[in-house]
């Protein structure tokens, strides 16, 4: 009986690890924002596009916050995926928007995960023009 319960517990843990990803945390005030000379709505769309172009499945798309996660993939050595990323937006004026990006790595498959902050910003630069 005990052994059956243990097997279910292990199965539950493994399935949980396969499915879940970490929640990104907002960078603190000491981390500088990236500023785009575009209205907040334009930058928000660019953030959604940038996440998708980097393989994130967008789960939240609010006016001032966009979040997505990359699906896990099994590999020969380490696999990949499982990261989640958040993009925080703040309107500075009608045509200036500050952006902060943060990638979180999940416990499962961390060895095959990377920080996507630069790629996300680069994709936004490509879409709406270089940031300041």
């Amino acid at each position: 009986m005990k052994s059956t319960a243990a097997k279910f517990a292990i199965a539950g843990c493994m399935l949980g690890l396969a499915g879940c990803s970490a929640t990104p945390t907002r960078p603190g005030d000491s981390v500088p924002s990236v500023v785009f000379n575009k209205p907040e709505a334009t930058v928000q769309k660019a953030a959604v596009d940038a996440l998708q172009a980097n393989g994130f499945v967008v789960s939240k798309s609010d006016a001032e916050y966009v979040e997505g996660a990359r699906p896990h993939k099994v590999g020969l050595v380490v696999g990949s995926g499982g990261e989640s990323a958040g993009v925080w937006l703040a309107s500075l004026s009608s045509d200036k928007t500050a952006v902060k990006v943060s990638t979180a790595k999940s416990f499962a498959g961390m060895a095959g995960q990377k920080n996507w902050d630069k790629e996300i910003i680069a994709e936004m630069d490509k879409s709406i023009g270089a940031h300041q």
Partner: protein
Amino acid sequence: MKHVLGLVFLALGLCGCAATTGNYRPLGERYPARPEHCEVVVFKDGPPGRPYAAISRLNVHLEKTFFVDSDFSSARGELKRQACLSGADAVIDIEEKHSSYLETRIYNLSATGVRFLDDARPPQ
């Protein structure tokens, strides 16, 4: 022990070794979706020679582990599906990007979905 290993492999198998994601975003007015496997013309080498309007931004992203590459032919089906869902008749401005990370090969394709402005629509 055998059962535990089996469960571990089951969980890993659920992750898969490839991921394909497709999305579209309307560029303005939202058009009704066409049937999922509708006829969509893909213009890889230039714009169509008839009047059109850009209506959607399309994105298809493929990632494969085990050092396996992807290319346009792997993404074509999902690209057309997203074009149909966005109500587009054709696809233009195709941009492909290849990258990699460790053993993962990444292929991203972005394009613009367009709707013809004359009456001769492709068959559904």
